[in-house]
């Protein structure tokens, strides 16, 4: 018999928007189920720049978005400390950049109340040795960085802790309607094909770039432009703070330090297919050339991979030919009852990672209105636990670097890891680049027959370093079998999938050292380990 489930709200999309909504609903005591076709963050929410905007970037072009960003910036620093690094940011003017813009920018930031201060050039050069010595003016702003992986995991965990349900690897295949009202969604397990129905009077479309598909299922008109941006990852973190270019926002003008790497981007090209994560070498070269204005050594520095994601940009009028960047990046909250006469369906799209909480608040406010509830939003104050550990894992035989990683990672799970790490083998470092122990990996394997190295990566940083999983992917797959967390075929498949996925991101940046790294990976798997025939035989 087909499985069925009943709830008050069904949320479609496990990106930061949907997950934020799920938590808000749960905190307000509203029953909700979130359905996500892949792992949490399958879409744009793990394919972005990770900049906690101070609003400065939008100060001139979109003051409203700027203020929203700044306010949310302050709130998130307080409430999601575990996923935010308060790096601060710099805006740098280089020769050729418009002086008039600088004046307007300063003026607008002042008016909006975003604290901006000029810092002496020598100080900037000392603190950021890679910054171009051509810089003419440097301003300090309250930018920060967001770890979207931990953010998603922590927000979702809090939602679940407050009674919400989460279905990952489940795809929404249809919207159920009764007359002019939605009544639920059809869902399919993407791994075993099993179907089920989720009955809910309210359905929220938080499917990001896939939003139009959902609208189509419900038979309502919706126009979203998917604006694809490319980002590249440098092998190490060469800046302390976010470095922005002080000019009208354009391609290739932000360097974001993220843990042990620096992420640079981005571009903007419209695409019709939300599943289009393709990477283009030429686009990247152009972006790097622009980036060299800020960081002249950029062409000599090693890139370890590239990735892309799409910004879902809502279009009020379904007009053609918009370039993407001109469309509002503000959020769009659509009540399809009011708009299209299909009650109970809500679409929330656009916006930013930085404003996800606000988007959730507004969406759930609307839900409450519809449900006739007066529950108030508490996410402005309710903080998620920090990721820092107060204890130092003194019982575990860990080298300082691995200990350091755990102390900045384990957070509330510290006691759990203190216990598991007592086992000598659990303290073995499996991923050396990012210092991930077997204890962390073990805890991240669901053990439900669906070993996926990407899912583990997002939860632990496994394979995110310069070697891109050359060593740790193999170790993890084999250890999973050894410890009874996966079958051999499952592990072999996960391994081939994982290696292929890493190779894709490396391929486009594969010159110099990364070309070598890629070959080393290939040689080890195909020749040394003899997976050569294996790959052709079964999985590709």
């Amino acid at each position, binding site marked *: 018999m087909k499985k069925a489930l009943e709830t008050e709200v069904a949320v479609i999309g496990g990106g930061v928007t949907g997950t934020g909504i799920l938590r808000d609903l749960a905190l307000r005591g509203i029953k909700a189920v979130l359905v996500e076709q892949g792992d949490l963050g399958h879409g744009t929410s793990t394919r972005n720049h990770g900049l906690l905007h101070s609003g400065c970037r939008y100060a001139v072009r979109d003051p409203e978005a700027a203020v929203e960003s700044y306010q949310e910036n302050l709130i998130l620093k307080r409430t999601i400390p575990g996923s935010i690094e308060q790096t601060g940011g710099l805006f740098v003017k280089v020769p050729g950049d418009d002086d008039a813009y600088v004046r307007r920018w300063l003026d607008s930031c002042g008016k909006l109340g975003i604290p901006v201060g000029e810092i002496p050039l020598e100080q900037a050069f000392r603190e950021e040795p890679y910054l171009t010595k051509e810089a003419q003016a440097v301003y300090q702003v309250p930018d920060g960085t967001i770890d979207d992986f931990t953010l998603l995991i922590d927000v979702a965990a809090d939602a679940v802790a407050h009674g919400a349900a989460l279905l990952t690897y489940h795809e929404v295949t249809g919207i159920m309607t009764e007359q002019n009202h939605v009544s639920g969604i059809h869902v399919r397990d993407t791994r075993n094909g099993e179907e089920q129905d989720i009955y809910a009077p309210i359905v929220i479309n938080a499917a990001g770039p896939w939003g139009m598909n959902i609208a189509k299922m419900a038979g309502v008109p919706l126009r979203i432009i998917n604006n694809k941006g490319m980002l590249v990852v*440098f092998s*190490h*973190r060469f800046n302390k703070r976010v470095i922005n270019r002080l000019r009208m926002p354009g391609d290739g003008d932000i360097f974001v330090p993220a843990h042990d790497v620096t992420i640079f981007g981005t571009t903007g090209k419209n695409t019709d297919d939300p599943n289009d994560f393709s990477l283009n070498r030429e686009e990247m070269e152009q972006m790097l050339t622009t980036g060299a204005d800020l960081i002249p050594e950029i062409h000599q520095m090693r890139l370890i991979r590239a990735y892309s994601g799409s910004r879902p940009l809502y279009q009020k009028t379904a007009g053609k030919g918009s370039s993407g960047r001109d469309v509002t990046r503000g959020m769009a909250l659509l009540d399809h009852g009011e708009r299209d006469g299909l009650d109970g369906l809500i679409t929330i799209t656009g916006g930013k990672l930085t404003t996800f909480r606000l988007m959730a608040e507004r969406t759930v406010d609307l839900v409450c209105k519809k449900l006739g509830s007066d529950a108030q939003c508490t996410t402005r104050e309710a903080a998620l636990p920090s990721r820092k550990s107060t204890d130092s894992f003194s019982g575990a035989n860990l*080298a*300082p670097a691995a200990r*350091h990683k755990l102390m900045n990672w384990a957070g509330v799970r510290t006691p759990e890891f203190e216990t598991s790490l007592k086992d000598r083998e659990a303290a073995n470092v499996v991923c*050396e680049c990012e*210092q991930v122990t077997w204890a962390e990996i073990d805890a991240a394997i669901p053990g439900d027959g669906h070993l996926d190295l990407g899912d583990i990566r997002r939860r632990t940083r496994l394979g995110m370093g*310069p070697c891109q999983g050359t060593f740790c992917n193999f170790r993890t797959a084999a250890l999973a079998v050894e410890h009874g967390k996966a079958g051999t075929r499952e592990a072999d498949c996960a391994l081939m999938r994982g290696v292929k996925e890493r190779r894709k991101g490396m391929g486009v940046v594969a010159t110099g*050292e990364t070309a070598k790294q890629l070959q080393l990976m290939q040689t080890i798997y195909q020749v040394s380990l003899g997976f050569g025939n294996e790959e052709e035989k079964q999985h590709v």
Partner: protein
Amino acid sequence: MNDALLDLNMFEDSYEKCLKCNACVASCPVTGATLDFGGPKHMGPELKRLIDNQQVIDDKRIEYCTLCGNCDLSCPEDVHISTLTTYAKAIHTEKHGSSFRDFVLSNAELVGKMASAFAPVTNTAMKMKPMRQVMETVMRIPKERKFPKYKFKNFNRSFANKVHGSKRKVAYFVGCYAMYNAPEVAESFVKVMNFNGIEVVKPRQKCCGVPMLANGRLKQARKNAAFNIDSLLEYTRKGYDVVTTCTSCGLALKKEYLSIDGSDKAKELAAHVYDADEYLRMLKDNGELNTHLAPMKQKVGYHAPCHMRAQGMGTPAMDILELIPGFNIYDLGAGCCGQCGTFGFKKEKYGISMKLGRTMAESVKNLDADYTVTECGMCKNQLDQLTDKEVRHPMQILAESYERAKQLQTV
């Protein structure tokens, strides 16, 4: 972030080229000898990447790194691993301070000056059991460990600059060992140069800084580097070549100063520095070498110091000594001696030091030559400890051969 540690920051980003290939790990003698060391890949590039622009991570296992540089030799990607481990050492010392012993050991120059002033007393004291017991207990310097002798008539006291205007002019970087412990090496070098009609001057100089680096005293090493760079540049700018008889000093001037000092002046200096044998080989290639060398029918084993190999110049000592008629020299191919500067003087490292030296001792034994040749005073110390063969510096042999040739001529 701790500011003092930020000051240590070196502009050293070669770590980003690391492929995690483990060649360095497989080649590091200390990694092979003990599981207590973290290995070059982790203690060098990996750690630096995790630290840069974030938070300092202090790992005390770095004390095991001897700065022998074998990791650098093996790394195909030109990661300056031992520079990065130097940095990890500096962090560790900065966080924990140096012990009195490490402070003393790293001050080769100060100790040299004092020990030499009281040379007879020092040398006797170092042989006295009660004295060594005290040193072992208080300073954790193992009592079995032999020490180089100190000479009262150190090279500073015996050498006077003489300028006579030869075509090639040499500014001699003597180094603490030849200055205080083995003035005979320095004197032989001057003789060899004189046999080639080359004027030698001794610029003002301080300890090259390598022992300091090995003990995490980066700031002090930097000061010494700055001093030496300025002092030596005065000469190179007047057409002098800088020549050393110590392979560690040579490596510092050619390579380490580029990363710990990093100035354009360091670069300028590096281009003028030669190892003594390398210098002679260059003379030979240019047809300028005095080849009146008297035959010496000897079978000799050559021990290549790590810091000689790290200079990437082939094996000039063998190239030069082979010019002596009848002289048979064989490379022992023994790898690291295990003394590693100050490392082998430390009680807690003594076992590893002995373990490392075993291969060398065995090859000396197997070759069974008349004596052993090596450039490095510290390698000599370990050879003295572990073998019963006499150990000589190439300059001593050359000087002897030249002198004999001269005697033969006059006879």
